[in-house]
């Protein structure tokens, strides 16, 4: 056969010999070698030449460059290109490409490993990226002094509240919550019941229940009690990773929050 069976693929012969073509093109050319006697003969013809080009690279480069210094001008471009290449990820590691071709199983294993790693690491990264502000919280009890009621007999709500507060003072917040809930249900207008219920939740580090209790109470409350509620509510928001909701509350406390102003200022600084 004096002609190549498929000239388009046959043209790749020199690039194949010099190992310059992609893996797909290489396979195409190798399949072509099964069909084309012409290219097969050509490959056999150049065996020794290509072997020498591969094994005596340095010597040939020196010979070519010393003979024709003009070629050196263009090799500067190669150096520039190679320097550029150093900044791209894959060519920096030429060996990785060889490994990739040498170990075909990598193609199967690598995506699986990457997916598993992503599944394991993403939650960790996610948690790390969102700064943990809960360490700045103070789980400090809201002070309470029992009042002695004279005159009118105590209502049922008051009785539940008094009992609940006994547990509160003993720091048994689970028990206090049960009783304070009953008190707050019977007398929802009394913000004190709701406040201590919310604080009990907060001290138990149950921030979401604290938020639902105190945020319902906040719009109905004025004066010092409002700032007490705001203070605990802001802390509950922070504990619940809702920094944005806490900030306006803290700012409000800083302006008018009396005893909580300094604390709120410190906490807000830490949040920034």
């Amino acid at each position, binding site marked *: 056969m004096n002609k190549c069976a498929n000239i388009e693929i046959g043209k790749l012969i*020199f690039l194949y010999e010099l190992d310059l073509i992609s893996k797909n093109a290489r396979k195409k050319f190798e399949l072509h070698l099964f069909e084309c006697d012409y290219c097969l003969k050509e490959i056999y013809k150049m065996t020794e030449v290509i072997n020498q080009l591969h094994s005596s690279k340095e010597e*040939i480069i020196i010979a070519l460059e010393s003979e024709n210094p003009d070629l050196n001008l263009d090799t500067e471009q190669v150096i520039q290109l*190679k320097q550029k290449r150093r900044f791209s990820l894959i060519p920096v590691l030429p060996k990785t490409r060889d490994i990739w071709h040498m170990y075909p199983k990598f193609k199967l294993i690598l995506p699986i490993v990457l997916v598993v790693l992503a599944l394991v690491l993403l939650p960790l990264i996610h948690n790390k990226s969102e700064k943990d502000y809960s360490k700045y919280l103070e789980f400090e009890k809201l002070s309470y002094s029992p009042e002695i009621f004279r005159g009118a007999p105590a209502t049922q709500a008051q009785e539940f509240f008094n009992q609940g507060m006994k547990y509160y003072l003993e720091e048994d917040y689970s028990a206090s919550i049960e009783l304070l809930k009953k008190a707050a249900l019977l007398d929802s207008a009394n913000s004190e019941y709701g406040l201590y219920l919310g604080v009990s939740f907060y001290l138990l580090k149950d921030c979401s229940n604290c938020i639902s209790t105190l945020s319902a109470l906040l719009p109905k409350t004025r004066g010092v009690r409002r700032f007490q509620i705001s203070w605990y509510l802001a802390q509950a928001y922070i504990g619940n990773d809702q920094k944005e909701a806490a900030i306006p509350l803290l700012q409000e406390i800083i302006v008018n929050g009396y005893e909580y102003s300094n604390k709120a200022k410190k906490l807000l600084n830490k949040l920034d």
Partner: protein
Amino acid sequence: MQETEFVELFKKAKNGDQKDLNKFFQVLYVRIRPIARHNLYGYGVEDIEDVIQDTIVGFLKKIHRIKDPKNYAITICHNKCNEKHRKKYRKSAPVNSIDAQKIDEILTYISNTGNISYGIEDSILAGIDRKNQLVIIKESLKHLSDYCREFTLLTLKNTELKEILAILKNMIPNLTDTNFYTRNHRCREDLITEIRNRKKMEGILS
């Protein structure tokens, strides 16, 4: 060889006798050898022959299950070459004594007939010692066109194909991708011609 010829030979070998097997594997050997050599530059002839023999053994073991013989042969050959690179190469043994006997016959047949019976020409530098080969190659390269020398130089400097293309496009502004392949092909032909001329001049080839 027509595309169907190889497949026909394969079908015959699959169902035929030892003669058909010998013939088929001789063809396979001739086709696989450049592929193995290409993947194993820098390795000795023995290593390359080991890989080819193992490809033949692997092929024979599964001959009745193979549907695409060309692809299958290339894949086994690549895998064996990769094993060589990873230094995890182990010579595979025939499955049973019948296989061993068949393989022995095939390999004896191939080594006796070799490429010659298949009409494959030797390398243009065959019979010349390595030192003289290098001299001829260097001289021949020097006499190529600027483009061809530049292309060879860039290749020897391990430059990637797209970078070579970018540099050569600077050199020849109207160089297209198609031109690039045609020109490279022509460079190869010029190199062969130059080598032949050098050989004549050195009196190596009458």
